[in-house]
């Protein structure tokens, strides 16, 4: 039984990591109605920039962090300027494909600038279990996971408040519903989108650091985005809460399946299991856990 809990908590903590990335997707979708496939590439780009700067400059952690954040904000503004502004009123499918193009661009660019070899990323957090929990319950919970979960939790809280309460948050939601209507009301669309993409860049940076620290900064990081997709399906594209809950469910389910279901079928199921789960869920509720039901007005 104990082993079950350990796997469950491990799964939940991994789930937090997923929801962190999913958050980036939700943020941009909620604000600009764009399903940003390049979020994964942004995570990889952020991590690589951070590590690259750390090596090159040798500056302390916090300064490098600030520098990387600046780079990410610049990236956010540039993306809005070059890619999104000309495509303002295009259908969602076109914007979606543009982000696929963006993800390829970012992947190529980051490796061009910083080279493509795998690098260690040390966050000062060790990946060993926490003694006290280990003794009492005998469950192996790595300090790293806990810390990561804490950071993610804080970040999510901040964003939830930001979205629902502040003036900019309301403007973001208006823009998501209808670009033209928002423009008509006088909301500075371009400015709003730059902010949103910068914040998404920040989230990507945090996710990049955490993921990078866990399994090294390398090209595989871009596949993180593919992990986050099922989370979005479960939680619904528009809701932050959905992203969190979805992430936890997927994380836990995946770990449990890997441990229990995997051997029966010959292992390696973590690739598609999350998707099948999400797919089944979709058949029941096509717009996800918290998504609003879309009424087709004729």
């Amino acid at each position, binding site marked *: 039984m104990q082993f079950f809990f350990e796997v469950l908590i491990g799964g939940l903590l991994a789930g937090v990591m997923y929801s962190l990335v999913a958050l980036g997707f939700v943020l941009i979708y909620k604000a600009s109605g764009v399903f940003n496939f390049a979020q994964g590439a942004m995570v990889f780009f952020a991590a690589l920039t951070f590590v690259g700067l750390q090596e090159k400059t040798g500056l302390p952690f916090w300064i490098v962090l600030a520098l990387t954040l600046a780079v990410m904000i610049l990236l956010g503004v540039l993306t809005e300027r070059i890619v999104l502004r000309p495509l303002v009123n295009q259908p969602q499918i076109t914007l979606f494909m543009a982000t*696929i193009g963006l993800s*390829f661009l970012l992947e190529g660019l980051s490796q061009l600038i910083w080279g493509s070899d795998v690098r260690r990323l040390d966050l000062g957090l060790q990946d060993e279990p926490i003694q006290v929990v280990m003794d009492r319950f005998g469950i192996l919970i790595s300090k790293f996971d806990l810390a990561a979960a804490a950071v993610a939790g804080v970040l999510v809280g901040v964003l939830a408040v930001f979205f629902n309460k502040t003036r900019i948050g309301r403007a973001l939601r208006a823009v998501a519903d209808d670009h033209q209507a928002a423009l008509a009301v006088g909301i500075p669309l371009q400015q709003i989108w730059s902010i949103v993409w910068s914040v998404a860049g920040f989230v990507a940076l945090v996710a990049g650091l955490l993921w990078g620290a866990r399994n090294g900064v390398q090209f595989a990081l871009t596949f993180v985005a593919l992990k986050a997709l099922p989370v979005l399906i479960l939680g619904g594209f528009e809701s932050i809460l959905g992203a969190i809950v979805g992430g936890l469910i997927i994380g836990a389910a995946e770990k449990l399946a890997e441990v229990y279901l995997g051997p029966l079928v010959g292992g390696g199921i973590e690739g598609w299991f999350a*998707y099948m789960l999400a797919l089944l869920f979709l058949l029941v509720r096509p717009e996800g856990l918290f998504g609003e039901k879309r009424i087709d007005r004729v």
Partner: protein
Amino acid sequence: MFYREAGQFKTSYAADQQLFPIRQDRIAMLALLVLAVAVVPLIASNYVLTAILLPFLVFALAALGLNILTGYAGQLSLGTAAFMAVGAVAAYNFQLRIPGMPVLGSFVLGGLTAALVGIGFGLPSLRIKGFYLAVATLAAQFFIPWLLVKVSWFSNNSSSGVISAQPVVILGFAFDSPVRKYLLVLAIVALMALAAKNLVRSSIGRAWMAVRDMDVAAEVIGIRIMRTKLIAFAVSSFYCGVAGALYASVYLGSVEADGFNLDLSFRILFMVIIGGVGSILGSFLGAAFITLMPIALDRLLPWAAELLNLNLPAGVTSMVQLVVFGALIILFLIVEPHGLARLWQIGKEKLRLWPFPY
């Protein structure tokens, strides 16, 4: 400028609805066919045949399949490679397990199997729309290759999961040399393209476009949305299946389920976007573009490097290729969302109206 349409009038609906109503288009198409069938095999070197033309044709077929689903029926799919994998493995197994099965027959059966799988993964499209559907097809993209590799029966329990495909022998005539392979694939692709063009301009094609443009209106005039979408999935997967079978047996020579990964799906999606969403010609233009682009880059980059005398480390070309791909996608979506096909169409329109602007 070259069009002389004066005097070309139609005396019957059949004439008016034919594939190429304008004589100059018919001449151009005929010339193209003669060039492809007679001239190319003579002058093209083996390298050109195997490295450029074969993949171009196979990818064009797959892009055609995806275009039917995404371009005409409006259902976004990211799982093209998975359906190609099904086609390839099914064709291999049909040939292996049923003695005396003709190669072409196995291709068709491979396609049909892919169509069945396609319908399976198409079912969710009835309830869900847009992005959610893209994710459902992504599920197929991850699940199917894993399944084909895992279940060893498919790969005739070869350890590495890589099986050498059977030689292609039809009616005793071995299609082994590059020229013969090229002609075989050309014949298949041309026929299927013609079939696709016919489908698109008859009633099922209009039903697809109706569902794509406004499914509420389509339903009201009596189009069965579910049936139309499933047919789109089936036909599209059939095309991808056959493309997969050709890709494995004729082009690569080996059937390897892992080879049909997400990256291949994206490449085919790019072909459809850049080539032109919703146009048969667009699939071919897109396939040509995406196949030729890397080769052109390989030649161009070293030359450019010398020019700017930077020393480029080895692995760079593939990186630059990624960047260029991404940039092109964005460029096309901004400049001409309907891709090369629309540019081709505008060019043709200008020629017909020359020297007038409208």
